[in-house]
């Protein structure tokens, strides 16, 4: 596609429910990132995929968070048993290679009520 696509753009869920957020990176990009951004704050690193290497999961805040990248393309971020503090915008980015500019999607705004 022309850019990084994320879905849904908005998600409201009840506390305790599981949610899945999807990211379609730019075709051919080997690196994919997930970040979280709370209102008025900076970008908090969550997880990084690079080709077939083991993902860097060092930013995942708890074991309720997990992510997969199937076939080196689409990625899904899953949050289990959502809590109110999970409310944020979740941003996905991809880059052609490691150490190159990353292009961001528009994000998924998650609200846990």
């Amino acid at each position: 596609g022309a850019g990084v696509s994320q879905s849904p753009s908005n998600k409201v869920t009840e506390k305790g429910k599981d949610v899945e957020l999807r990211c379609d990176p730019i075709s051919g990009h080997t690196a994919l990132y997930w970040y979280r951004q709370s209102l008025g704050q900076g970008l908090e690193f969550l997880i990084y995929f690079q080709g077939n290497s083991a993902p860097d999961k060092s930013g995942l805040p708890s074991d309720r968070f997990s992510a997969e990248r199937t076939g080196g393309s689409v990625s899904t971020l899953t949050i289990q048993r959502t809590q109110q503090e999970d409310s944020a915008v979740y941003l996905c980015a991809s880059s052609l290679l490691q150490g190159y500019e990353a292009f961001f999607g528009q994000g998924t705004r998650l609200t846990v009520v």
Partner: protein
Amino acid sequence: GENVGLHLPTLSVQEGDNSIINCAYSNSASDYFIWYKQESGKGPQFIIDIRSNMDKRQGQRVTVLLNKTVKHLSLQIAATQPGDSAVYFCAASGGAAGNKLTFGGGTRVLVKP
């Protein structure tokens, strides 16, 4: 790990003046730096990048300066326009932090007419 931060959370600039946004990083092994612009409700947008083998890089109306001695990065915007009003983030990668991009907290630039 990498720690990237900004000196000024908010910068008010008169239209037509030059803007300077500063950023400090902690990991001397960082070798790739990016500036992003984020408008309300949108994902970060790439502005300009620089690698550690350079100390200056120019784009259209923007210049990035890198001082590796003091681990400092700055973004200069010439003739600031109302459309430049946004939050600006610096990011770094490389070294012990690996290839993931680590972001600073952001500076909000407000352009006054």
